[in-house]
């Protein structure tokens, strides 16, 4: 069971220090594991950063990597979750020629049906933003690429867990 390759979302709470990204990515690199997606941001706690990574590995590997992550001095706590245990999103931005918006009626339908948001429009181009699951963004990309996309970028996955991660309590305990 542990040997099956699964999709895991890794959440790592850390101090906000230079070089920590290198230290964390090195743990994966050393084991020849590709990081499928990576996002870093502030977390719900002041001064604590949160890394969100997606990897495709076995649960056995995942457990060992969590151990390796947590033994890093500046990592406060690391967790891993399956898709079912999280609410997750990714975001994408499309830059498309403005002419198309008027010449190709189909594009307007695609935008409407995909629930994408027009961020800005000018004479040359318009910018479309879409948040959601990867499949939805892939679909939108496929549909729009028929007309030509000037630029495309997709963010790493961000996720919150359905269950509580008791990180605040851990930090509070340290203060005492």
């Amino acid at each position: 069971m542990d040997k099956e390759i699964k999709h895991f979302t890794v959440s790592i709470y850390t101090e906000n220090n230079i070089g920590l990204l290198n230290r964390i990515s090195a743990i994966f690199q050393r084991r020849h594991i590709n990081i499928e997606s990576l996002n870093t941001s502030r977390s719900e706690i002041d001064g604590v950063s949160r890394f969100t990574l997606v990897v495709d590995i076995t649960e056995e590997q995942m457990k060992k990597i969590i151990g390796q992550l947590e033994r890093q001095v500046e990592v406060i706590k690391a967790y891993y979750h399956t898709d079912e245990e999280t609410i997750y999103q990714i975001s994408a931005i499309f830059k498309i020629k403005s002419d198309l918006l008027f010449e190709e009626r189909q594009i307007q339908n695609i935008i409407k049906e995909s629930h994408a948001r027009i961020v800005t429009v000018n004479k040359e181009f318009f910018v479309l933003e879409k948040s959601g699951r990867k499949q939805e963004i892939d679909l939108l990309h496929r549909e729009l690429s028929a007309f030509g996309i000037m630029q495309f970028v997709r963010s790493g996955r961000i996720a919150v867990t359905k269950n509580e991660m008791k990180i605040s309590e851990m930090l509070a305990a340290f203060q005492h």
Partner: protein
Amino acid sequence: MKETQTIENITKSTAVTERITGSEAIVRCLLEEGVKVLYGYPGGAIMPVYDELFKYQDKIHHVLTRHEQGATHAAQGYARISGEVGVAIATSGPGATNLITGIADAQIDSTPMVCITGQVPSHLLGSDAFQETDIVGISTPITKWNHQITEAAEIPEVIAKAFYIAKSGRPGPVLIDITKDAQFEEFDFKYKRCKGIRSYKPVPETDISSLEKAAELINTAKKPLVVWGQGVILGKAEEEFKAVIEKAGLPAAWTILGASAIPTSHPLNVGMVGMHGNYAPNILTNECDVLIAIGMRFDDRVTGNLASYAKQAKIIHFEIDPAEVDKNVKTDIAVLGDAKQSLKDLLPLLNANSHHDWHQKFKDLYKIEFEKVIKYDLHPTKEGLTMGEVLKEINKQTKGEAAIVSDVGQHQMVACRYAEFNTSKSNITSGGLGTMGFGLPAAIGAKMAAPEREVVSICGDGGYQMTIQELGTIFQQRTAVKVVVLNNDFLGMVRQWQQLFFDKRYASTKMTNPDFVTIAKGYHLNARRVTKREELASAVEEMIASKEPYFLEVCVEKEDNVFPMIPSGASVSDIRLE
């Protein structure tokens, strides 16, 4: 005189702030942490610190090694024999990169070490400046922690953290990179030792129920086997360990880094596990019913093929680093925590036992190993000298009181197998990384940390030449180490593998060696070469009697092999005697 008094006054008072440069602060931080000796090599980006080391030379002894790698190994030797943090210092660029092997060695062998490197001024960072290298980036995967300082004001807190991290929990190396402008900058200095870091828990809490379960399993075991590692030594748990095995009558075997935690002669000491370990503990690993691992990490050189390692046994793992639990061998009971406390708490839960019949099995298998291997190693009848008989002679003349600092290769396995130890922290060797060139510089550090002890470095002719320049350090410092080179004119361990697994194709393992005695004499060391058995005892006697550093080359049989041996990828119980 006035100068010295001023320094004395300021080193005592730390509560009040005072305005000093970053470089002076670095030296003052080292003094605050109790550092007496550090090893290093000067260069452009670290010169301000060396200028302060010059001013503080009556308080802190800087040892100029002949290569920065030597500085790291000397710091490691110092740390391993003293239990204190070893300190190495180097300049930026090549100075810093030359530290890497020693840092990697300290990381895998859990040795507390702080390395300080100079860095180009902060405004030149990233400009490919002269002697600029991203040493923080380079050292990240092989340090327990590392950090770059670009402002003097950071120095006290960061160095305090460095020492705290290096020595707490499972120890390891820390690298602090300090830009040259931060070394020149003045700031208000005040030192406070680090007591804790919120994101770092050095010692995990011990679950009392895991201890109770472990005790129950040990109490009901019919064929228990303890395998202990360096965790017993690093945790200063030797007495607690001895009490546990003596009460429960547990046969106990060691990994090479665990050697000397209890005396070699202790009746419960059943020898070394692993690739070139003893026959009995390897064979019986696959026969015991409970395997009690204490402060060891199931290295592949210890376990052989994991698929057939102690599958019949329940596994108990006493461990300080949670990441080690279930990493290689799945445990039934993990007792997290510090070995000293865990073993102390375990003792009252154990029933007294003797396991007499089970012990007899170890004795019977030892007899087989003696007849097939040990007899020929220690009491050879052939003409050529064996490495084993050299060790036997050193044991005899030092009465097991010497610290043996070995390099890496055949001689290392022989030294670990045959050296007799009475006291802990006596076997200093590069275990996990297998760093050739470790033995000579590590012995310098060991002797400086424990000048009252006899320190004998055992090297092969290959590894010796990787750091042979440290003879210069020995000469300059008059460090009274005894250096033994067991010369077989081969890279012996690789040659052994070529013989056994590569149809005797001796690719690049034959060494055309220089006159080692002349080289040692060039450094004004007393030196002698032994080629015949009848010269050995008197040469070792002369070496041990010397109050000065001494070099002894022993020309041994060229194509001897180290046995027993678990071939790579084989099971521990498939250990070969010939």
